[in-house]
């Protein structure tokens, strides 16, 4: 049977988000540099984290605000706070 898989990109396109100009996710790459697991790269349901030229970068505007990365990042490379009031996701069907 042909498998129909919706890409993550397509799904993120459906999420209603008010984009802030400043990121609510701060990355301390001096910590990430030493992190072997880099769990954030596969854990994030929105694929927010990417490793570019050896540095972790966060496409914070895609964040679904679940906070899993904050919980999973034991060394503190990710400093995650809630987006400012008026910004971030607005779910209708939660």
């Amino acid at each position, binding site marked *: 049977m042909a498998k129909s898989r919706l890409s*993550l990109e397509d*799904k993120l396109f459906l999420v209603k988000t008010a984009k802030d100009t400043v990121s609510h996710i701060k990355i301390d790459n001096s910590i990430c540099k030493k992190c072997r697991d880099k769990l954030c790269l596969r854990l994030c349901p929105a694929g927010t984290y990417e490793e570019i030229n050896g540095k972790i970068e966060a496409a914070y505007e895609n964040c679904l605000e679940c906070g899993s990365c904050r919980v999973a990042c034991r060394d503190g490379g990710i400093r995650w706070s809630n987006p400012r009031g008026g910004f971030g996701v607005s779910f209708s069907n939660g």
Partner: protein
Amino acid sequence: MRQTDKSEVIVVGAGPSGLACAYTLAKKGIETIVIERGEYPGAKNMFGGIFFSSIMEKLFPSFLDDAPWERFVGKRKFAILSGDSEMAFDTKPEFFNKPPYNHSFIAKRGEMDKWFAKKVEEAGASILTDYCVQDFLYENGKVVGITSGGDDDSFMADCVVCAEGANSILTEKAGLREKIGPERRSIAVKENIRLGQSVIEDRFGLTGRQGAAYEYFGSSVPGLLGNGFIYTNRDSISVGVGFSLSDYLEKKDGKTPNDILEDFKNHPAISPLVRGGETVEYMAHMIPSDGFKHLPELYRDGLLITGDAAGLLNTSFFHEGVNLAMASGIFAAETLAEAHEKSDFTSETLSEYEKKLKNSFVIKDLENCKNFLSFLHDHKAIINDYPALMNDVVVDYFRVSEKPKSVVKKEIFNRVMKNVNITQMAGDMWGAWRNLV
């Protein structure tokens, strides 16, 4: 906002526990403001899909007629997926299908929380949206207000109720718990898929406002503690997977949460149910798995913690969250009413809150399932090997052939003996009965 803005109580978060707390306080004539970071109550919230409404119905006897629920849960299915197979227990008792519908309703938080918030406002509390609390304000160690981070942007109160939800940043900042790690949370991802009302009713065998709640164990979340689910809304379905974060991080097979959801949707047992649907929304949220043994401190001078932020979620098969959250909000409000009377918001007075929780189903149920997750974590055979074996046995038993049934029975017996250590399985089953049920 100016420093002078003051209310008797500030509730942080307009979810079920925060709103239940504010409603109860407002009814008692205590000046209350609910502060919500979302654009509207429910905008940042997600749950599986079943609203357990027994507490809500006590607050609003007209819940059944007034509240924006999607469908009542008339039909439940518990299935085990294994490879491409499904084995299921399906139940549609009359009891589920007449008022009060076993107090179980499929709902969307965006709708339900908004409705609830309106009731809270009608009762006299104020609700401020689009305001994100970044920290509490202290005076001599007592919480006296909240701030969004700006110097002149704060609110003062006699007491603050923290109903911030599963991502319990403020609770950690206040030192009521250590930074939560992956063993304390599960993650759920979910899609809302539009199918149309008549397709849903035909496909799931439903009539009128009747709804279906299907839960899938086994390989729905391969090798992980968790499950997949489908809940029917009016004209759409909620399809998702939830699993333990620590399990997921240990597994390291490179699959993302979205991959796991897509695999689930493409399982032969699931794909006919989602076929032809249009995905409307994609969401993610954490679920507390603190359990009885790892609850945070629930109060300090001028502060109470309720709902998911306090880890008050039944982590067993019951998956109850909303009603525990609401009960905790109401207990917080009752405690605050007593504190208000005495004008004493010290931790000594507020400790009454913990007593109320302990004497209620909230903590009793958490205690009852205190070993649930750790037992399954240490006995993975129960979620991996036994379901697969059970499936094989059923397949062999019903396989049509000219082989005499006596030979089939013997082969099945041999297969079971070869694959499991009977003493260990008996021990696992006894443990399962004691720890899981």
